[in-house]
């Protein structure tokens, strides 16, 4: 497998934010001569905050869901206890001094 000269994750985030940020600034904060139509500007201006809030909600929902579906391994724990008993017996039989 070839090794790619990768930008760090931080670098990728900064690039992405710079790109989106400048696009947003160019459109939403443009001087009067170059402004896009008013409805578009009204939607664009609070967009960053909306996206942040949306991401926050997504995060909470995702973590909440994963928390709720986090498996409890009852069977594995019980099996483990059995195995520990068997292991102790077998090892003592084979000469292990615990």
């Amino acid at each position, binding site marked *: 497998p070839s090794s790619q000269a990768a930008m760090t994750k931080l670098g990728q985030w900064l690039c992405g934010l710079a790109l989106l940020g400048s696009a947003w600034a160019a459109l939403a904060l443009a001087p009067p001569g170059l402004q896009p139509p008013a409805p578009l500007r009204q939607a664009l201006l609070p967009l960053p905050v909306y996206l942040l809030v949306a991401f926050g909600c997504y995060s909470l929902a995702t973590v909440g869901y994963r928390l709720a579906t986090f498996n409890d391994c009852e069977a594995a*724990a019980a099996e483990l206890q059995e195995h520990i008993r068997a292991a102790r017996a077998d090892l003592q039989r084979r000469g292990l001094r615990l």
Partner: protein
Amino acid sequence: MAARGPGRVSVLLPTYNERDNLPLVVWLLARTLSDSGIDFEIIIIDDGSPDGTQEVAQQLEKIYGSDKIVRQLFLFPSGTAYIHGMKYATGNFIVIMDADLSHHVRLHFMVFLIKPIVYRKQKEGNFDIVSGTRYKGNGGVYGWDLKRKLISRGANFLTQVLLRPGASDLTGSFRLYRKEVLQKLMEKCVSKGYVFQMEMIVRARQLGFTIGEVPISFVDRVYGESKLGGNEIVSFLKGLLTLFATT
């Protein structure tokens, strides 16, 4: 000396004060691996335990034979025991379990999965790495309260967002590697402790290695004893941010 088949597995087991757990882990490994017809060896790398771990390891070597149990005494900082252990590994697959975690070392826990699936999955999908995951399929935990589960899921979510690692569980640390892959990764990784485990997966993706996943059950041996304190959380965040900025 027995002939080394192409599918020999070396299990690296770093220990510190594991006098009680070690015989059980070895017994489980030996039984599961030989029941599945997998050629194996267990390399016990002890960090100078004062509780008699080395004597237990010696007894185990007598019981199972020096072909199967290799003992190494190693007194270096965490994260580097594997590098030392690997020098003695004769298998071409390496299993790492019970990672060198400072906050796990004194906990009694037993990761309960040593199924042939791990090895078979390696062969089936021809993966470079097979990683155990607590978060997918029927993987899971036992003996965790809500708070610990929440922290675990929250930390994992943050890791996924920041690192996009392509593996669902980066801190579970129960993995099978091809020997050459592990050697290559060890050269490239610089972190210590469990951040080292995370870094290995991230670097593996960067280098184009394939990673398969297998659900595992993570069972705390001593119910309720594991604590996830503020210190652990802070050091995890520091490690995560370091990986974010450097990989």
